[in-house]
């Protein structure tokens, strides 16, 4: 298995080199994306095959890399879950790109980096030592950075690219420190050696904090998320889908690998920051999604929310595991893994929808779209499925994972620590808030883009997207539905990974009647997506039949009620800003929202203006003070540039004496 997986990863990397050679070939784009899609499907086979056969962890060592270490590669159940996730996401994005790539003006800005990006992510998942892990992590970061810069002529994109590069560098540095601490002074960078070593509680806490910051900066945890809503949308849409749907999951994998596998047992208090940061990330992410006016940025903010939900689940799993409740830990972890998988499905789908809309209209701003359901009915239908999935409506897949997570939250009174007993229900409240806000956000997303009347000429003249893109989106939508009504199979598939991480699993779901989900005995509740779907289908069908039967079948058009203000201009419709206003006003302090109204003086006929600014508080309270501190320090240290030779010598001498004194005291 591992040999097969590594071969695929290397093929993907080689495909990148091939793409550079295929400059100028008209079929290059189809060839590259087509082979990427096939390789990703092979990855799904590898991942799912490993999980289905309950194959033992397999590893191999390639003598490339550090001379005494080589490169260890390793495939176990945990990697296999994420390899499957990556395979599905990558295959869908590549298939979508076959159609989407035709609209690229400069395909060679994307082609050489795209397969390599996929390959590097596979290698991160397969890494069996810290060196390989960090190296492939950095390759993944740099290639995705190159992909973000595809449209490098836009000023915004360059800024986004710079911000991303800085944050990615910071993240890798923190991961380096974390793995350095794990390996200890002995330098045992092999994961097996790290796993075997005993780590003191203080060290474990430090490593976990570094992993939170390092992997969290890639995943988009607040307050390290600032690059995500600018960088993800700047890339071409299929790359955005990969970055949001898959790369953030690779970061989640990195965190899980260390927190659940390498670090060994951790103190329960370590779970508190994970839970709290996760919940805050969920709420802040979706709040920003609610007030943003750019379709792709809304999706990126929503990614932040979902990452928050996943991290909350991971935190709960840590809490349950440290209190020796492996079954409940398995429940929380299953919820987290399932949500990671689901989020990959619907977020990729929605980014592809945004890409299709972008291709058809050239607009990302919600207030320039509208009425696309008439022009792009198929895309609209698929978007509706994605939107219903992401807002956790049953019987779709988003509901299943959130339901499982809430089942885990409801078990918090069983935890022995009073602190957690209070904290976890509060976090449950925050998660419920996030779920409700997500619903509001995606009603707005779908409503403003697809319903109503077109707000611009380009939206009026849009045409349906191509068949490849529709097929990729359709495949993802189908998977969303299937994962929603048959979640038991997915849970069974992931069970070996959960077992590896917390030492227990939720009961086998495959044989339950009516495909009912019965998580664990303690929960005493169950859910059947299949039955809900049957009910929805029957009741919906019956209502439609009755309405059409009893009323006439004729389509009627009538003037809309215009509130007594007979202006037919499409901009008088309820728009993105109108949807956002109530939430923006209520949450103004959190969003840093300010409204300005400029009235013309009396007698002046010019229009009054209403402006809204929102501001990410992370900038004001976290980054600006840091930037100011760096500037202050560098201005002060600037004097060191202009010392006399003797002073430089004194400086060297002084630091030597200081170090020697330190050494004396240390001994």
């Amino acid at each position, binding site marked *: 298995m591992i040999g097969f997986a590594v071969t695929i990863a290397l093929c993907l990397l080689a495909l990148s080199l091939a793409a550079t050679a295929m400059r100028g070939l008209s079929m290059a784009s189809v060839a590259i994306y087509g082979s990427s899609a096939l390789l990703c499907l092979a990855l799904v086979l590898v991942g799912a095959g490993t999980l289905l056969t309950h194959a033992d962890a397999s590893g191999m060592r390639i003598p490339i890399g550090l001379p005494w270490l080589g490169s260890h590669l390793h495939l176990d159940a945990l990697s296999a879950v994420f390899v499957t996730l990556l395979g599905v996401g990558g295959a869908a994005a590549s298939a979508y790109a076959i159609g989407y790539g035709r609209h690229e003006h400069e395909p060679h800005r994307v082609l050489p980096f795209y397969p390599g990006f996929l390959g590097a992510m596979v290698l991160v998942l397969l890494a069996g030592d810290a060196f390989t892990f960090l190296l492939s992590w950095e390759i993944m970061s740099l290639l995705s950075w190159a992909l973000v810069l595809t449209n490098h002529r836009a000023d915004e994109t360059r800024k986004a690219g710079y911000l991303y590069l800085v944050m990615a560098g910071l993240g890798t540095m923190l991961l380096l420190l974390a793995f350095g601490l794990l390996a200890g002074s002995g330098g045992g960078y092999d994961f097996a050696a790290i796993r075997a070593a005993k780590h003191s509680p203080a060290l474990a806490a430090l490593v976990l904090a570094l992993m939170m910051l390092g992997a969290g900066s890639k995943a988009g945890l607040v307050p390290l998320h600032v690059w995500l809503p600018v960088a993800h949308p700047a890339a071409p849409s299929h790359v955005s889908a990969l970055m949001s749907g898959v790369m953030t999951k690779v970061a989640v994998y990195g965190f899980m690998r260390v927190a659940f596998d390498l670090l060994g047992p951790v103190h329960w208090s370590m779970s508190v920051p994970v839970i709290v940061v996760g919940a805050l990330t969920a709420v802040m992410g979706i709040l920003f999604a609610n007030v943003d006016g750019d379709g792709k940025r809304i999706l990126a903010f929503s990614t932040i929310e979902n990452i928050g939900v996943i991290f909350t689940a991971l935190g709960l799993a840590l809490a349950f595991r440290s209190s020796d409740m492996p079954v409940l830990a398995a429940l929380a972890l299953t919820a987290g893994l399932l949500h990671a998988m689901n989020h990959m499905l619907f977020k990729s789908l929605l980014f592809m929808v945004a890409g299709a809309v972008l291709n058809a209209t050239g607009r990302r701003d919600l207030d320039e779209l509208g009425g696309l359901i008439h022009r792009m009915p198929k895309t609209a239908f698929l978007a509706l499925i994605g939107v219903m999935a992401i807002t956790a409506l049953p019987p779709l897949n988003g509901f299943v994972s959130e339901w499982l997570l809430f089942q885990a939250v409801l078990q918090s009174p069983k935890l022995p620590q009073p602190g957690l007993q209070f904290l976890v229900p509060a976090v449950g409240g925050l998660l419920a808030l996030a779920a409700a806000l997500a619903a509001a956000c995606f009603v707005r997303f779908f409503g403003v883009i697809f319903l109503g009347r077109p707000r611009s000429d380009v939206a009026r003249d849009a045409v349906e997207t191509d068949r490849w893109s529709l097929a990729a989106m359709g495949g993802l939508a189908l998977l969303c539905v299937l994962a929603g009504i048959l979640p038991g199979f997915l849970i069974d598939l992931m069970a070996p990974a959960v077992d590896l991480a917390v030492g227990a699993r939720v009961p086998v779901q495959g044989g339950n009647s009516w495909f009912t989900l019965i998580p664990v005995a303690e929960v005493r509740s169950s859910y059947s997506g299949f039955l809900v779907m049957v009910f929805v289908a029957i009741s919906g069908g019956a209502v439609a039949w009755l309405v059409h039967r009893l009323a006439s079948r004729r389509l009627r058009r009538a003037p809309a009620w215009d509130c007594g203000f007979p202006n037919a201009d499409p901009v008088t419709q309820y728009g993105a800003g109108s949807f956002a206003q109530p939430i923006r006003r209520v949450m103004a302090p959190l969003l840093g929202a300010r409204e300005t109204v400029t009235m013309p003086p009396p007698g002046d006929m010019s229009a009054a203006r209403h402006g809204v600014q929102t501001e990410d508080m992370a900038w004001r309270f976290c980054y600006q003070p840091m930037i100011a501190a760096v500037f202050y320090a560098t201005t002060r240290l600037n004097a060191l540039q*202009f010392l*006399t*030779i*003797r002073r430089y*010598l*004194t400086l060297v*001498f002084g630091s*030597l*004496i200081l170090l*020697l*004194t330190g*050494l*004396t005291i240390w*001994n």
Partner: protein
Amino acid sequence: MQGYAFDIAHLLAGSLVLVSFMMIYQDRLYALLNTFALQAVLLSLAVAWQAYIQGAHHLYASAAIALVFKGIIVPWALHRIVRRLGIDREVETVTGVVPTMLAGMGLVALSILLMLQLTQSAENAIAREDLAFALSVILLGMLMMVTRRTAVTQVVGFMSLENGLILAAAGAQGMPLVVEISVAFSVLIAMIVIGVFLFRIRERFDSVDLEALDDFRGERQ
């Protein structure tokens, strides 16, 4: 024999440190150069003694190199430079002699504390004491470089620092001759380079006071 060997090695190494202190309070350039020559002679004696008690014959070569290069050639060359440049014969110190001496004592205390602690496992008492004294000589050489203004005195400080390195190497039983010779040559070359620079600085600024360079950079407030 053992105690006797130890005492002599101790005496020689200790006198190197003592000469380092003497160099710190010299206020005439020629006297400083002579003291430096004395230190080099003492160094060659110390190394020769190490060669004798360790039975390591290649160390005699090291001793000879130290004597010829540092005891004779370098002081002579520096004498010539000072004469040819017509440098002011007075050593200009940055701080007074007394604070410098006190700082030097602190440095010696630090290096002895540190070295005796670090080398507790080493059974060879001679090597331990030697290392402690060698570190003192190195630190005192650096102190001299830091507290003097003119380039010539900084060169002397640098050479004396290097004496400390040789002493440490001789005491550590086993520095190969090749390394030693290359160190000796690199120091000689460093001296030549610095000497050339001295002439160039002097040509341009009519002084070898390094502060003049800073005036030139326009960075002196």
